[in-house]
């Protein structure tokens, strides 16, 4: 693995230029937090009408929601801007990447960092802080480890989804609209207990697009719940495996996409 200095050089410039405009940045962070709160509002409204959803109570669903949102926004901060690939393809900037002695994906990922998504991150953390004590968790080292690991593994999975969606842009024209269905649909599915879905759909959001591994299944472990048929709680321990598989798929797709680009020209 090449040393990280070149990536660091560009990243630090980006961070500095983002923080330079304090007021805009603050507004952006607030806006991102607002979006996060808006999404939680749906969950809140649901629970003013019922006391459980998909086998979990309000605290439990709040945990699933918060873990999913936290994982998604962490991935969004670090990797989210790979969705700029179509712009780079059109402007020939990708050729500039190919002319440097660095990995193209590495350059794309480190070309920017979206610090404003920290707002949504903060909302996730805040919800966790309130919901964790009320969820009836059996606290110990295992539970503490899970709380830290779940959003991190979730972020890795979502990052793979971002990269796979970007790779698709090598083949599709104006394809962002199409891949958004999977990226944001996946995020939506991850925020709720997947036990509400019928088996075929549940299998799709667990084993095809591993949304369930980002929050719901590991949260079942945390809560000591058994989980629905075909996707039981102990699958939650395999979240890291799901992350690895997701990245294998994403990287394979990326390499194929790059081969397609250099093979057909633009």
């Amino acid at each position, binding site marked *: 693995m090449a*040393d990280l*200095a*070149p990536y*660091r*050089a*560009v990243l630090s*410039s980006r961070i500095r*230029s983002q923080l330079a405009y304090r007021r805009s940045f603050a507004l952006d962070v607030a806006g991102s937090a607002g979006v996060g709160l808006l999404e939680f509002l749906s969950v809140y409204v649901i629970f003013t009408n019922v006391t459980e959803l998909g086998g979990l109570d309000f605290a439990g669903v709040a945990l699933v929601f918060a873990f999913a949102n936290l994982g998604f926004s962490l991935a969004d901060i670090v990797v989210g801007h790979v969705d700029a690939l179509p712009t780079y393809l059109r*402007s*020939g*900037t990708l*050729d*500039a990447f*190919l*002319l*440097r*002695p*660095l*990995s193209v994906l590495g350059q794309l990922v480190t070309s920017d960092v979206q610090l404003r998504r920290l707002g949504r991150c903060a909302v996730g953390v805040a919800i966790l802080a309130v919901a964790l004590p009320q969820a009836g968790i059996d606290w110990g080292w295992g539970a503490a480890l899970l709380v830290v690991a779940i959003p991190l593994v979730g972020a890795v999975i979502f990052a793979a989804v971002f990269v796979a969606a970007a790779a698709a842009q090598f083949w599709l024209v104006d394809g962002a609209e199409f891949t958004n269905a999977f990226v944001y649909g996946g995020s939506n599915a991850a925020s709720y207990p997947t036990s509400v879905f019928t088996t075929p759909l549940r299998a799709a959001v667990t084993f095809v697009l591993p949304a369930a591994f980002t929050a719901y299944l590991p949260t079942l472990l945390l809560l000591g719940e058994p989980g629905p048929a075909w996707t039981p709680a102990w699958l939650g321990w395999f979240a890291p495996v799901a992350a690895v598989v997701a990245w294998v798929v994403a990287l394979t797709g990326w390499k194929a996409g790059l081969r397609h680009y*250099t*093979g*057909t*020209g633009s």
Partner: protein
Amino acid sequence: MTELIIDVVGLSRDFTVRAPAGRLRRTSRTVHAVRDLTFSVPEGAAVGYIGANGAGKSTTIKMLTGILVPTAGTARTCGKEPHRQRRELAREIGVVFGQRTQLWWDLPLHESFRALAAIHRLPSDRAARRQVELVDRLDLGEFLDTPVRQLSLGQRIRGEIAAALLHSPRLLVLDEPTIGLDVLSKERLRGFLVEERAAHGTSLLLTTHDMDDVQRLTERILVVDHGQMAFDGTLAGLVDRVGAQRVVVLDLLGGAHGVGAGAEVGGGAGGAGEAGVRAAGVPDLRGIPGTELVAVEADGLRQRLAFTPGLTTAAEVIAAVAARATVRDVAIEEPDIEDVVRRLYLSQ
């Protein structure tokens, strides 16, 4: 034996172009952008690569630098296969695309240099020294802190060239670098490139439409037409091939033969200059075998003789002139090369 910095054998590249035909169907046809190109360039050489738009120049460059994979044939740059060994090759070449940028668009220029120094793993003292050298000789000092997107075209090109040379590559590839620049900027840039090559022995591959670039910077020309090699040789050889005339410009000391200040004579109509040439005190250069007097300037102290390379040589012309007058200085002007290239295409 010098290594070949570029070695191309049977290089070909096809594109499939799909166009809508009617409301639902699409036709597809194959465009042969590059056809069976073969040439090699030894290290240290400077080659001009010229051709009309769409002749395949940029496609060849892309294949030589690893951006595009050939459909057939092989290309080796700095001894490496561009596509398979992209990253190693990137350490040894510098590339400038005139119409696209390799700098970081919204960051100040010096940040691009910082990033590139880190990317090429240059030791910081070496990078600093090299940057100072480039900034000085390309006059970048006044806009080092300006974001790249705010630079003028000329400033940006100079910045790109500095960025491409920061890691002292063995080969510098320039794709239409002087397009859109004014005459003064072009000349300064050419001057810099000549000095750089002399100082560091960098090989140069230059694609351009500007024939003065070719004349100033390269010793060898490759002319490509519709993807195929139409000419590979020296500029003089090209001129020779299409029979265009070269012009010897002579600065003379007043001679003993009694011809004087004259008006400039239009090219090719030698007879019209007679009257001007009759004035006293200036050498008469008419009648030298194989030449045509095309202009008399500065009261006869500068005269231009056109000659056809096949019929006589520059050396013979100068010798003949020296017999009639004292020559202070000589320059040779190549013909309008747009014209030459056009003639070459027509002669195919």
